[in-house]
């Protein structure tokens, strides 16, 4: 079972996240960067499958230099090696370009049986990468799942939706995306932390992947952001003092909002 896990470094969800004034891309400098929590779960799932079925776990990240920290965390959890696609030309890439790059990078790993991703990153929140990637790779996609099992050459998974639970199956190789219900990620052990620095990290550029820099980044993006404004602060709201008819006033308000 050779597994590639997609990991992304994102601004800490606890910190204030901003767009840059220059090109309305994410301001990565102004916030603490962390390995996206959903990716920790993706790594955990890969490690569990590896424990059961053997093989190698490769983590793949596309991101600026400091994404090495997120890669290291995944390696310290127990992944075997990593690919880091880092190139200034990638700045501002949209989901289509990102998926293209990731697909090429996955192509550099031999004998991939499974690609595991989080269902969506906490920064971009497009949630489209796993599906686009599966299309580009020509692989079945088993997305948004809370449980994964491998049975021979079949991947079986459970997708929970508001309507119910769907039981999915696909033939390997396949692309799987997981939700936060999938597992509780392990903490890196001290030995894992110390071993991480000795593990192999291949750093690749856009050219190494045989892509044209014009296809990716801001120039290659299919849409562009013209303007961005911070969300206005929440207004104080309307306060109802109860001097006997508070209930009626609340009902009136709810009717006014067409809520009842």
């Amino acid at each position, binding site marked *: 079972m050779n597994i590639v896990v997609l990991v992304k470094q994102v601004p800490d969800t606890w910190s204030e996240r901003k767009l840059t004034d220059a090109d309305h891309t994410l301001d990565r400098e102004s916030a603490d960067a962390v390995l996206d929590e959903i990716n920790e779960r993706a790594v955990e799932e890969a490690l569990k499958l590896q424990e059961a079925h053997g093989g190698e776990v490769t983590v793949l990240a596309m991101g600026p230099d400091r994404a090495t920290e997120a890669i290291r965390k995944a390696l310290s959890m127990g992944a075997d090696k990593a690919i880091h696609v880092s190139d200034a030309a990638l700045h501002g890439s949209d989901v289509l370009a990102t998926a293209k790059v990731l697909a090429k990078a996955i192509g550099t790993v031999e004998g991939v049986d499974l690609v595991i991703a989080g269902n969506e990153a906490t920064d971009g929140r497009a949630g489209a990468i796993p599906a686009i990637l599966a299309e580009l790779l020509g692989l079945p996609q088993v997305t948004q799942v809370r449980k994964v099992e491998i049975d021979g050459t079949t991947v079986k998974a459970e997708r929970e939706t508001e309507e119910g639970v769907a039981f999915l199956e696909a033939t390997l190789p396949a692309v799987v995306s997981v939700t936060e219900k999938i597992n509780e990620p392990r903490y890196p052990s001290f030995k894992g932390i*110390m071993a991480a620095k000795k593990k192999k990290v291949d750093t690749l550029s856009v050219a190494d992947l045989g892509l044209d820099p014009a296809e990716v980044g801001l120039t290659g993006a299919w849409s562009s952001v013209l303007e961005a404004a911070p969300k206005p602060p929440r207004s104080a709201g309307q306060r109802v003092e109860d001097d006997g008819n508070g209930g009626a006033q609340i009902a009136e308000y709810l009717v006014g909002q067409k809520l009842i």
Partner: protein
Amino acid sequence: MTDTVNYTESVERRALRAAVADLGARYGQRYFLDKARTGGKTTELWAEAGKLGYLGVAVPEEFGGGGGGIGDLAAVCEELAATGCPLLLMVVSPAICATVIARFGTDEQKQRWLPGFAEGTTTMAFAITEPDAGSNAHELATSVRRDGTDWVLNGGKYYISGVDEADAVLVVARHVDENGQRLLPSLMIVPTDAPGFTFQPIEMDIVSPEKQFTCFFDDVRLPSDALVGAPDAGLAQIFAGLNPERIMAASFSTGMARFALDKATAYARTRSVWGTPIGAHQGIAHPLAQCAMQLELARLMTQKAAALYDAGQDKAAGEAANIAKYAAAEACAATVDQAIQVHGGNGIASEYGLGALLTASRVSRIAPVSREMILNFVAQHTLKLPRSY
């Protein structure tokens, strides 16, 4: 080697801190205080930290440990304390006991004990303090004598932490010859179930799962391999274990101080009494800034002491560890006190978890070595002033 000083910790040390902080945050102060108040122990946290190798970071790799240094162990202790989970037994079991056995034990003793320290499955208490020999280790009365190939231990200790949780106690005892003459002290491994060894809890006003005990040794018979190191090594070998203890005690204190300072600053940013957050008043802001500086200085000295110790410079580490322990204890007591002040009445309410730290934050001024004895040490050894006692 360059002679530049490196003020940033390694990537691995920082990753270790982050991982331990994540683990500690999942437990948190609520867990710790609940255990303390219901007579429980932090068994789950200890076991999980042990399994992840955090308690065994400084145990040599050949015995299943992490092969790191006391600086790594101190980072673990500090980060856990900073999440509200100060583990007192870290100061004793992996820091003193495992260090002494790793440095001075025979191969058999290492095989017997170190794998357990590496995984945190073995806990060992440490006993030096006696009713008539607290700060003065030269007056120890607990004695050990030869009987054939066995050793026989007699005497007593008090204020010994965690005996009820320990597999064994590392006891400092002095050899006596046939004439009853007291000779050099040695370290004896005494299993807590050894016949003739009894212990009783001392009632303490500290909110902590760890208890302190009075220990009695009545003709406790120990096998020949109970003695660690050379019988004639004396105090020097014991002090080798006390430097890590001081570095750990300092980290325990800086962690607790960080916890209190985080709470205090969060409160000062949001609590508003006169229309602005109280943190805007310099009467609140400046003392907190002083605490932050005192704390950072203490952390810096603690890291220096750990770096010297890990570089094998025992003598320089001794001075630095004492200074770090003093600075950290003062920073901790001052910060907890100020954090309570910032919280007003809430500072004493159980819900806010600060009153619970009051006694604990003062312990570090007394144990494992008192503020006064450190001042004596610096006066005498650093400043070469005459000794008064």
